[in-house]
C-alpha cells in the first residue's frame, strides 16, 4: 500500500491517484468503525490538534474536532476573527505562537487563497487545508468522492456535473482535480459570469445550459451561491438564478434516473436547490456527505500523524 508522502495536505491538484485511493480506503474503514461505534481512541493520544479558523464554519470545524477526538487527540479550537488579523496580527505571528505551543497538526480555514501554504512554510506542525479562499478544500472533495464511491461502487467513468458558482468555489476546484485524477468525466455548469476563465484547460467540459449539463449525469453536485454575488452584479437576482441554475425536479430529470444529488452545505434552499430535492432520501446524499466528512478527516489526521512519527 502506498504511503501518503507529504507533511501537509494543502491541495489535491497534483496529488497522485494512488494516494487519493489510499486516503479514501482508509476513510472507508473509519466510516465502518464509526458506524460500529468502535473508533480507535488512542491513535493520536498525546497529540495536539489545533483548529485554526479565520472564517466561520461550524460544520467543517465540528467535523475536524470530532475526527480528532475520536482518534484521541487533544483538540483545541481557535477562532481568529478577521478584524484582529486586520489590526496587524499577521498569519506569521500566529505561526510563531503555534510553534511555541508544539502543535502536531494544524487545521486551517482562511479567506485567502494560499494562506495554508504560507503557514505551512513557517510552522512545524502538519498543516491541513480546511478551505482557503477560492483555491482548494481538499477534505471536502475527499468526502465527496468517498460518498460517490460508496453509492456508485466506483469512481471510474462516472459523469459528474458540478453546478453553480464555480468561479468562487474551492470545493469545485478540489473536486475537479480529484475526480479527473480518478478518471471521472467532469462538467461544470453555470452562467458565464460564474465560470472561471479558461476552465476547460483544467480538463472539464463547460455548460451554460443546465439541462444539457445534467444530461445523463451520474452525480449532480450543487454549490452554494453566496449572497454577495448578487450584490457584485455577477447574478442579477436569486429568482433568476434559481429559475435557470437552481436544481429542481424538472432539471434533475435530465440526469440519469439513479443520479445522486450532493451539496457541501450550508444550503440556500430556493436559490441553488429546491427543498424537495435536498430532502429526497432517494436522491440526496447530503446527510451521508456529513458522515463521510468525519471519516475522511480521521483518515487525513491519521496519515499525517504517521508521517510525523516516521520523520521524527
Amino acid at each position, binding site marked *: 500500500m502506498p504511503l501518503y508522502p507529504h507533511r501537509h495536505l494543502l491541495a489535491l*491538484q497534483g496529488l497522485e491517484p494512488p494516494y487519493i485511493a489510499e486516503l479514501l480506503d482508509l476513510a472507508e474503514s473509519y466510516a465502518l468503525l464509526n458506524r460500529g461505534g468502535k473508533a480507535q481512541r488512542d491513535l493520536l493520544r498525546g497529540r495536539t490538534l489545533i483548529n485554526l479558523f479565520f472564517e466561520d464554519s461550524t460544520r467543517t470545524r465540528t467535523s475536524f474536532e470530532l475526527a480528532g477526538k475520536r482518534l484521541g487527540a487533544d483538540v483545541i479550537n481557535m477562532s481568529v476573527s478577521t478584524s484582529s488579523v486586520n489590526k496587524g496580527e*499577521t*498569519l*506569521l505571528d500566529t505561526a510563531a505562537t503555534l510553534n511555541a505551543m508544539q502543535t502536531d497538526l494544524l487545521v486551517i480555514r*482562511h479567506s*485567502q*487563497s*494560499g*494562506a495554508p*501554504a*504560507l503557514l505551512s512554510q513557517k510552522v512545524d506542525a502538519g498543516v491541513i487545508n480546511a478551505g*482557503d*479562499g*477560492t*483555491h*482548494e478544500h481538499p477534505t471536502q472533495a475527499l468526502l465527496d468522492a468517498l460518498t460517490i464511491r460508496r453509492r456508485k461502487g466506483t469512481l471510474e467513468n462516472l459523469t459528474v456535473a458540478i453546478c453553480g458558482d464555480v468561479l468562487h468555489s*474551492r470545493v469545485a*476546484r478540489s473536486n475537479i482535480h480529484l475526480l479527473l485524477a480518478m478518471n471521472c468525466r467532469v462538467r461544470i455548469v453555470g452562467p458565464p459570469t460564474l465560470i*472561471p*476563465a*479558461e*476552465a476547460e*484547460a*483544467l480538463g472539464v467540459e463547460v455548460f451554460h445550459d443546465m439541462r444539457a449539463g445534467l444530461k445523463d449525469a451520474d452525480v449532480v453536485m450543487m454549490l452554494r451561491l453566496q449572497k454577495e454575488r448578487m450584490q457584485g452584479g455577477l447574478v442579477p437576482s436569486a429568482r433568476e438564478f434559481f429559475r435557470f441554475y437552481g436544481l429542481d425536479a424538472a432539471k434533475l430529470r435530465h440526469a440519469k434516473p439513479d443520479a445522486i444529488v450532493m451539496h457541501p452545505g450550508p444550503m440556500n434552499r430556493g436559490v441553488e436547490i429546491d427543498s424537495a430535492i435536498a430532502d429526497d432520501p432517494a436522491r440526496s446524499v447530503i446527510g451521508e456527505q456529513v458522515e463521510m466528512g468525519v471519516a475522511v478527516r480521521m483518515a487525513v489526521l491519521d496519515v499525517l500523524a504517521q508521517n510525523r512519527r516516521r520523520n521524527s
Partner: protein
Amino acid sequence: MRDLLITNARLLDPATGLDTMGGLLVREGRIAALGRDLSAPEGADILDAGGAILAPGLIDLRASLGEPGHEHRETIETAAEAAAAGGITTLCALPDSAPALDDPALVGFILRRGESTGSLTILPYGAATRGCLGAELTEFGLLREAGAIAFTDGARAIGSARTMRLALSYARAFGTFIVQHPEEPSLARDASATEGEMATRMGLPSSPAAAEAMMVARDIALARLTKGHVHFAHVSTAAALDLIRAAKAEGLRVTCDTAPPYFDLNETAIGDFRTYAKLSPPLRREEDRRAVVAALADGTVDAIASDHQPRDADDKRVPFAQAEAGGAGLATLLGVTLARHHAGDLPLLRALELLTAAPARLLGLEAGRLATGAPADLVLIDPERAWKVEAGRLPGKAQNSPFDGRALEGRVLGTWKAGARVHG
C-alpha cells in the same frame, strides 16, 4: 578632483553606435576626451579596465522610492546604494509617495535629496493629479519649473477619460508628457494575477490581459484628439504593443517602456503563491513575454525602466491576494536586460541603448552618452561575469526581487557619478 584616465576599455556609446577599444579621460566631473590613443595628463589617476565595457551610466526611467512616507521600506540613501551597485546614475522617481509629489516644494525636496546622495541624480515626476487621486490636474507649469521631469499618477491609472484628455492637452503648453499606468481600473481592481488557467487553478482574483490594451487604445485616441504626448509605462501584453506600434506608424506622439519582469518572467513565477512575483501589472503569459522581447528589438518599446517598487517583509509575507504588488529592480536592471542579449534577442548596443540613450532622448537629458563634455556618469561592465540574484543579499534595503534565485551573466564592476567613483 584629479583627472582620471580609464584605459583598455571597450567603449560603448549607444547614442552614436560607438564600439571600440580605447580610453576615456574624466576631468572635473565631465568627459574630457575619449578614443583610441589617449595619453594620461600629468598627475592623472589611471585605471586599466582590463577590456571591460565602459558605457554611459544607466538612466532608470521609472522607480518608486520609499521616501517620503515609506522609509521602513527604503530610504533615498539605500535606494542610491542599490542604484550605484546596479550601474544607475540617473533615476526618475514616481510621485505616488506619501505625500504625493503634487507641490513644487516637494519636487524640490526630492531633487535635493538626490543631490545629497552624491551618487544618483533623482528626477522626480510630478503628480498628474492632486494626491494622485485622478481628479484635479496639478500645476504642471510650476512643477516643471521646480524640476518635475514629466507627469504621472504612478501606479494608479488615470481612469477618467476626461481627466486624461485635459492632462494630455495641458501638458503640451509645457512641452511635457503624461505617463500612464495602462490598466482599466474597473477591470483591474483587487486583481492580483492575470486572468487565465493559472489564476483559475490558484483561485486568485484576476484581471484580463485586455485591461491593458483597452486603456492603451483609449489613450491613443486621446493623444490623437489632443496632439499630446502619452507614454505608457511597463507595457506587458502583445495586444497593447500592437496598438502602440500602429500609433507610432501613424505619427502620433506615443511612447512606451517596459520593465525586466515583463521580458524575463511569465505568470508561472507566481506558482506556489510566491508574493515576490506579485507585480502591477501582473505577470503575463509566455506569448506576451515573447511579444515584449520582440518589441524591444523592433523599436516599439522606447526604453527599459526598472519599475523598482520597494516592499518590506510585512508587505510580502502575507497571503498572495493581500500582499503588496511590486518588485525591487535597481540591482538587477542591467543583468536581466543583458540576459536578452545573451539569449540572442538583442544586440548589445540596443540593450544598452534602452537603458541609456533612449531614456535620455525621451527626457531631453544630456546624460546617457559617451561624448566630450557630457557628464562623466559611467558604468564599467563585465558582460560575462555570472552571479545569482539572492533576495536578502541584494544591495540596498528592499529585497523583494521577483528574480530571486535567477542566475545572471553581466555584472557592474564600477560606477562613476560626475567623475566620482560611487561603486566598485
